[in-house]
């Protein structure tokens, strides 16, 4: 008898609490859907990073109002998105759409976590290089929205706005400016092949050999005499040589040296500009000067949206991307939220009047897309470590060739 009372009371209490919890959320959140559309049960989950969140939220609001579906934005660190997407899509816990960088495509394709997209006639609205970057084996896997690259950034008050044609010119002008260093570049204890890649390509030593159509093969292209020439040059400008490259300079030190005016030139991306202008530095942006005679071609990265291969809302996800994100307003909002070079041609034309953006666009035109093949993931570790070792005084030729051998063994 007492037991029955206790059990009954427990059930009643649980039910009360359950209904109290449920009361707030059971209401449909978007009520102004079109006539006859009751879509409150359908949720489209999108992973975004903090920078992009407001812009995507604006597009999502319009989408919610017109389709009645609910968009759930999940904010994550940009660096975590790649690993989390690969890990969670197969478990069914992944999002319908994620924001991401184009060089993840190869990893996403081999993990089987990404769907193809087809933007049809809207392809003409986007820069071809951005679409190529998201293409893998002839299929498009992402809707691009921005390009980013690094460029030569110079302190106008110290060296003017003229772009130096070669590395030697730049050093000569930098020395004449009389600052602590003629030039500063991020290397850090771990090396930074990405930032130095423009100099490396000017020696004709790309990471992977490119086909005629621009797609990458998995054949390592930075071995041979051209690669060794770059390694030797790096060593001459490293800590055993004239010290322009130093493993003691990491990102933070690079930022503070340039902001203080202790160096008139650096190589950085658009994300670094804010630090400089906040410090009162008057900056100009130019293409990276050549060190080895060829064109200095930095990596161009493209950012965009991927659709999950395991999405339960594939139709809505495509609808959201093609009808609500691939529009001028949404692309403009994305640019305003995070000013990188727009992949949408109409927006790129609007913002090209800004000299800083124009400088990065000029640098990107010299650039090559970062390889999106899955082998690229294995490159960084070996490549960066070899660069750091050579900068800090290791024998350039043997270190470089050993790195090539290790890399080829790792990706074979």
């Amino acid at each position, binding site marked *: 008898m007492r037991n029955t009372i206790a059990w009954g009371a427990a059930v009643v209490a649980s039910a009360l609490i359950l209904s109290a919890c449920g009361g707030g959320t059971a209401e449909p959140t978007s009520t102004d859907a079109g006539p006859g559309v009751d879509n409150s049960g359908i949720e489209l989950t999108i992973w975004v990073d903090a920078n992009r969140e407001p812009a995507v939220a604006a597009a999502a609001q319009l989408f919610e109002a017109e389709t009645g579906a609910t968009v759930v934005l999940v904010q994550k660190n940009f660096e975590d998105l790649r690993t989390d997407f690969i890990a969670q899509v197969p478990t069914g816990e992944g999002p319908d759409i994620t924001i991401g960088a184009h060089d993840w495509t190869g990893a996403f394709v081999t993990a089987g976590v990404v769907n193809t997209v087809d933007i049809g006639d809207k392809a003409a609205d986007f820069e071809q290089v951005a679409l190529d970057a998201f293409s893998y084996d002839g299929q498009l896997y992402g809707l691009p929205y921005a390009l980013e690259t690094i460029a030569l950034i110079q302190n106008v008050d110290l060296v003017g706005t003229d772009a130096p044609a070669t590395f030697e010119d730049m050093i000569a002008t930098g020395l004449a400016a009389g600052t602590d260093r003629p030039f500063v570049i991020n290397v850090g204890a771990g090396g930074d092949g990405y930032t130095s890649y423009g100099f490396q390509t000017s020696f004709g030593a790309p990471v992977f050999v490119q086909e005629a159509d621009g797609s990458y093969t998995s054949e390592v292209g930075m071995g041979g005499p051209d690669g060794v020439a770059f390694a030797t040059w790096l060593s001459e400008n490293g800590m055993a040589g004239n010290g322009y490259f130093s493993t003691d300079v990491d990102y933070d030190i690079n930022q503070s040296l340039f902001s203080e005016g202790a160096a008139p030139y650096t190589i950085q991306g658009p994300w670094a500009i804010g630090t400089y202008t906040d410090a009162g530095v008057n900056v100009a942006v130019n293409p990276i000067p050549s060190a080895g005679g060829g064109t200095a071609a930095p990596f161009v990265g493209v950012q965009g949206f991927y659709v999950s291969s395991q999405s339960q809302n594939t139709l809505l996800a495509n609808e959201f991307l*093609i009808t609500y994100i691939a529009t001028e307003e949404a692309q403009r909002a994305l640019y305003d939220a995070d000013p990188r070079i727009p992949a949408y041609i109409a927006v790129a034309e609007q913002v090209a009047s800004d000299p800083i953006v124009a400088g990065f666009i000029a640098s990107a035109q010299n650039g090559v897309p970062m390889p999106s093949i899955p082998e690229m993931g294995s490159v960084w570790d070996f490549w960066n470590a070899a660069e750091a070792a050579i900068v800090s005084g290791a024998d350039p030729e043997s270190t470089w060739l050993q790195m090539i051998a290790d890399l080829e063994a790792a990706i074979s």
Partner: protein
Amino acid sequence: MSVRPSHATTGAGRPSPAGEPHSRQWRGLGIGFLIKLLLMGIVNALGVAVVLAAWASESWAILGAMVVIVVVVDWIYFSKRALPLKYLTPGLIFLAIFQLFTMAYTGYVAFTNYGTGHAGSQTQAVDALLIQNERRLETSPSFVLSIVRDGDELGFAIVVDGAVRVGSPESPLTEAPDAEVDQAGRVVSLPDWEVVSRAELLSDRGLQQAVVDLRVPVSDEPEDGSIRTREGSTGAIYRSVLEWDPDAQTMTNVDTGTVYSVTDRGRFEAPDGTQLPVGWYVTVGFENFTRAVTDSNYSTPLLRVAGWTFAFAILTVLSSFILGLILAIVYNDPRVRGRKFIRTLFILPYAFPAFMSGLLWRGMLNPEYGIINEFFFMDAYIPWLSDPWLAKFAILYVNLWLSYPYWFLVCTGALQALPTETMEAARIDGAGRWRTFRSVTMPLITVSTAPLAIASFAFNFNNFTLIYFLTEGRPRFTDTSAPLGHTDILISAIYQISGVAGGRADYGLASALSIIVFIVVGAISALAFRQTRKLEEMN
């Protein structure tokens, strides 16, 4: 304590015998019972919420486990027979979820090849391969498309050169002359077919999936491809290169005729050895465990890393214990003024988050711009973090800085707890300060701190945070191609090898190595605890 089973059979309504636990005495709806009811209500509500969520996402294992937990918990807290369990249950549930499940899952992954190229199940790999190999015909324009329905059968209607064509998966596209088209070129009505409205499509998830999966052949020739749509309003002609045969478990390339069959490594492989890019994970037995030992690329560096791990853990515990003890003895002396204030200052490094201290010290140890070289070594260039031996020294030093306050606290407590009569007896017996310390103070302190020393050893053995934020394992070994360095400890080496941070992830190998480390740490701790028990018995 004797168990009296007669209590369990005490009938309802009889007055409780004296000595029965108070929880068994029914006193109506007392305040205690109401609080219990409220708490159990919350627990049940949470449980039911999880069950409903699991039902919605079709996670049957979670659903089953949750139902069992809720029923068991209710039985335990509303039954009179399970008094000990009322205290133990919360702990047991957390043990099961956070320890046993994690360990069992790690154990399972260690026997699979889960990692890059083997990320999901076979069904998902098949899905992905079919998606990747269905290509839009280069000649295909984009069509304005309407979704049409005839009873249960779905189809597409498109407008080609002003003429409406309609079809379904069974019947290829044919002309529909009596169709009505609006100004935007969209079909709005058809004889025999009902046009599905946009509103209906958007509100029905099942219909959306059916539409996305729908392929309407362009003609009787499969070569010509089929119409598909992605968002329900435009279509294009696609053609699939791969064909999946679920019965034979093979993928066939319809252009070349190559047949890819399933391998025991979780891949589709052609007779000539070429593989399709997407795989799935399968169990591979002890391979991950043997690879760490037999692959010479890993075994030699891992041995060196293991040596440094032991050295690092032991030296850290010893150095921080000794420094902490010395300071504790000095600041335990009543002659020192302002002891409380000074003690508080000593604890400060302990109060900083370790990762912040790691980053901070990394900056301060920068040879050119760091303040260590600038202030203490007259701007000399000392490569603290890039010379193998200096980097090891720097790690030990920074960890000493981080962990001596802990031992200072522990030893101060132990010193204050020393029995005064024992100390007095030693003095009366004529023992000097050193003799007292060596023969009385030290053994007593060792007994009370030894278990903490073992715990500290186990913690530092896996002190990933410090290594990752201070050196990331650098400087790298130059005589091996494994991406490991002189200051890597086993756990950071596992992180590197497994490629979890990027590159080629190999969660199977990483799990196998974690299990090996777990066994090593567990065995050492067990042995050490046995030794300290002997120490206690001696006293």
